[in-house]
């Protein structure tokens, strides 16, 4: 019973919270509030840092959106070039009347 009332990391200290992810008993020093939950250090690290595949997927998605952005700009300037080439000469000369 005593084992459950003492901190996992500090056997001399009383338990103040239990991590909802790993269910370990922890003292005041070993828990941190995150998103209205009291988490232990290792669970907090897992929650905050995205997992490697997640991060990789995000980077790939961002690179794809950036490439799409480049393509959009290129299409815009290509369309501008075609419009300029086919616009009547009157549009390229400032003659208000």
């Amino acid at each position: 019973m005593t084992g459950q009332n003492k901190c996992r990391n500090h056997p001399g200290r009383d338990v103040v919270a239990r991590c909802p992810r790993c269910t370990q008993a922890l003292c005041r020093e070993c828990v941190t509030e995150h998103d209205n939950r009291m988490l232990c250090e290792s669970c907090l690290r897992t929650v905050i840092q995205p997992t490697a595949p997640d991060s990789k997927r995000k980077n790939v998605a961002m690179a794809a959106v950036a490439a799409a952005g480049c393509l959009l700009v290129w299409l815009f300037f290509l369309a501008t070039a075609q419009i300029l080439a086919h616009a009547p000469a009157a549009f390229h000369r400032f003659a208000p009347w």
Partner: protein
Amino acid sequence: MVNTKTFDQQHGRATTALIDESGQLLRSAPAGVLCLYFAAAVPFTAGLVFFWAIMIRSNHSIWFAAAAALVLSLLFVWMKIGQNLYCCRLRQHLTGRRDTVDILRAVCIQTAIQPTGILTLPICLVIALPYGWACAFYQHATAMNSRASDSKQLLELRQHAMQWPLQNHAVTWLLSPALTIVGVCAVMTMPPLMRLINPAMPLALQVATSMIFIVVAVLSSPVGMLMGANFSVTLLLLLSQTGCDSPIASALLQAGAPSSTFAVIVCCLAYLCMDPIVKACYVLRGHHIRSGVTAEDLHARLRRIRAGS
């Protein structure tokens, strides 16, 4: 209940005060910051002038146009990344905090966000009403710090764009180079378009409609059009000195009247003069908005006092 909020808290700092502050920020910043801006923007504007001058001649192939458009789009991306770095340097100078800039992330974010602006902003301008907010969104996107997460970043950009609309619209009206470009485009294209629609239009009506377009353009962007008029006069004087037979004069004048390439040069010069100030304004605006939540301005002041002592 008594409203204890001051005018600054409700509507943001006065527009003239913000522009003045941005001028002071630019003056106090190291010369390298402004050089960074021009290193980013000048290649694109020069490229745009060459692209325009070449493309108005119809004797080029689609492959040549595609290659030229590719070079110009790369220069556009280069400009946007450079402008983001310029804003980061300005923010560092403002807060006194030496934040590291993740260049690769900044490249990805700016390349993903900014190209949508070349389609969104003209559409917003046609609808007229949301233009100020859309413009603020893209300006804050240029001035943003690329370290936060994507979802948080977009949420913050939206909040910043919606904050203090009076101040935002006043800055956009006074300093937005996009409105100057639209004004010049309207003055250049509308009279020939009307003549094309109605070839038998009387001269008096042509003069009246042209004058209306010029007045509307001046009212929509007074500072930009004034700057454009100054650059036009200077360029015309320079061209009169070089003579009408020179290759530059033949590209800029058509039968004695300014060509569209001339208008593009004027717009680019006005852009290069106005845009660094606009960017500084939005860096300050973002700083003021964030300061209301994080007291960033007090931290910056304390940092300055600590550095001075």
